[in-house]
């Protein structure tokens, strides 16, 4: 576990100096950090608790809309709206979970798609609240300590802080009682109950934490884009990308979602420039290869292989 904290400190340090080294590549880094954070947050529910959601765009959307609508319609500073949406997203996740955790496996996943669609329709149709289908512009932002929140540099450090917070939360969880309850519920709910665990409570807590963190990233995303549209931000595609990022990297691992983000965002960027038209095709193929040959993801698969080999050896000797 200590090694994870060392890796973490190293990465954060690199992250802090990145803008000085590659000032021309800030936008792609911001995208990468946001996806790393979202996938890590998604994984608390999807990987650690084993409840695959394809509705997490709803939480990105909640965060983004709270911040954007807050500043442009009500002149509430983003730090207040972010605090509000942490609470709102937890509440939404709680109600959402209460409603759908009776469903298991793929049925739960399908229900998340349906509920996320409701959020998208609300965002499009309730124009008085959300700005409707045309979306919301963020025209002005306060300048805390003289910082320009529109600048790429500041966006970058916000995204870095977001990714770092989610990874840190997962590192803390992974060794805690709650972390083991999550794993137990994922592996076998009956067996978890025999250990005194209430699976519904554990899943609700995971969903609330996962949703709140995802919304935090959504708020930063809104500032980064400074213009948000319901079609993009509440869209199924975003939910799928978040989930795939974590799945490709390795569900239920500390670094899997980050590696996934590096691969998905990185390859997306490279393919877009190199292969132009064919980039979606190659992107799709890449995902298929990983899912078929490494069902536990890029981090999960070798880890598992190593562990099993060690024991095969020990058993022979």
């Amino acid at each position, binding site marked *: 576990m200590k090694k994870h904290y060392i890796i973490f400190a190293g990465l954060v340090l690199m992250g802090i100096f990145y803008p000085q080294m590659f000032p021309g590549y800030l936008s792609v880094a911001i995208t990468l950090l946001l996806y790393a954070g979202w996938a890590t947050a998604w994984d608390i529910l999807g990987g650690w608790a084993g409840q695959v959601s394809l509705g997490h765009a709803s939480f990105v959307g909640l965060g983004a809309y709270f911040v954007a609508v807050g500043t442009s319609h009500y002149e509430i500073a983003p730090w207040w709206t972010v605090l509000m949406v942490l609470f709102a997203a937890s509440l939404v996740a709680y109600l959402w979970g209460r409603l759908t955790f009776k469903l298991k496996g793929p049925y739960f996943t399908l229900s998340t798609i349906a509920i996320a669609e409701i959020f998208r329709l609300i965002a499009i149709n309730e124009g008085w609240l959300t700005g409707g289908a045309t979306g919301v512009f963020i025209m002005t932002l306060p300048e805390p300590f003289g910082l320009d929140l529109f600048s790429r540099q500041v966006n970058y450090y916000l995204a870095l802080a977001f990714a770092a917070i989610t990874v840190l939360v997962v590192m803390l969880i992974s060794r805690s009682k709650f972390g083991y309850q999550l794993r137990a519920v994922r592996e076998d709910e*009956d067996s978890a109950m*025999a250990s005194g665990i209430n699976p519904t409570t554990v899943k609700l807590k995971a969903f609330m934490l996962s949703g709140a963190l995802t919304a935090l990233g959504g708020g930063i995303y809104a500032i980064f884009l400074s213009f948000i549209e319901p079609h993009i931000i509440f869209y199924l595609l975003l939910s799928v990308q978040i989930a795939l990022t974590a799945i490709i990297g390795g569900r239920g691992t500390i670094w899997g979602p980050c590696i996934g983000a590096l691969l998905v965002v990185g390859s997306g960027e490279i393919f877009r420039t190199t292969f132009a038209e064919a980039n979606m095709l190659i992107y799709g193929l890449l995902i298929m290869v990983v899912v078929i040959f490494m069902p536990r993801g890029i981090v999960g698969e070798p880890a598992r292989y190593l562990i099993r080999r060690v*024991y095969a050896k020990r058993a022979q000797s």
Partner: protein
Amino acid sequence: MPSALRADGITVKFGGVVAVNDVSLDVEQGKILGLIGPNGAGKTTLFNALTGFVTPQAGRIYLHGKEITRLPPYMRTRVGIGRTFQTERPFEELTLLENVLVAAFLKEPKRKKAERLAMDVLEKVGLADRYDQPALDLNLARRRRLELAKALAVQPSVLFLDEMMAGLNPPALKGMIGFVRQLTDQNLTIVMVEHIMEAIIALSDHVIVMANGSVITEGLPGDVIEDPRVITAYLGED
């Protein structure tokens, strides 16, 4: 001795099938109740009703005098029931230590202490040397012992064991019998389902025989296995 577990008139139906029919039992603290009967007699279903995994259509259940009939399974664990599953259900992706740790956290929320408790329990069941192995690759005898370790790590006052001995080779069987007996020395109350008569005779203070969901007879182990009704139940009517 006070009654540790009492059940009155438990009935469980699955659709038209009456899996458990009006079964009552009473176990004193520190004693072992053996539950036997042919396949499909309803033993596991009775277990599930007592531990909360199925809801009985009728009957009441008391643990140390307090009614637990309506408690969900995880609440029953919290008030003192531990159980194993007939087909073992380890958390396959977790190591042996982590498997037991999940259960140990119930009474010891601090990681260090929970880990020590889990390690102690693994030691007791003889799996300590493999603590960091994934549960997935265990053989049957070790899966059984892991199942037992998980049930013990919640520090129950009443322990339910569903066919812990089936399929064990003679030395492993002997080991398990010795181990279970030793548990009652610590005042643990045990309800066990078992097909292996050797284990039932060696361990039980009282035996209940079920067939087709009903109790056909009960008493001391030595008397019960001599009972002609029991022999017919096992061998069939004709």
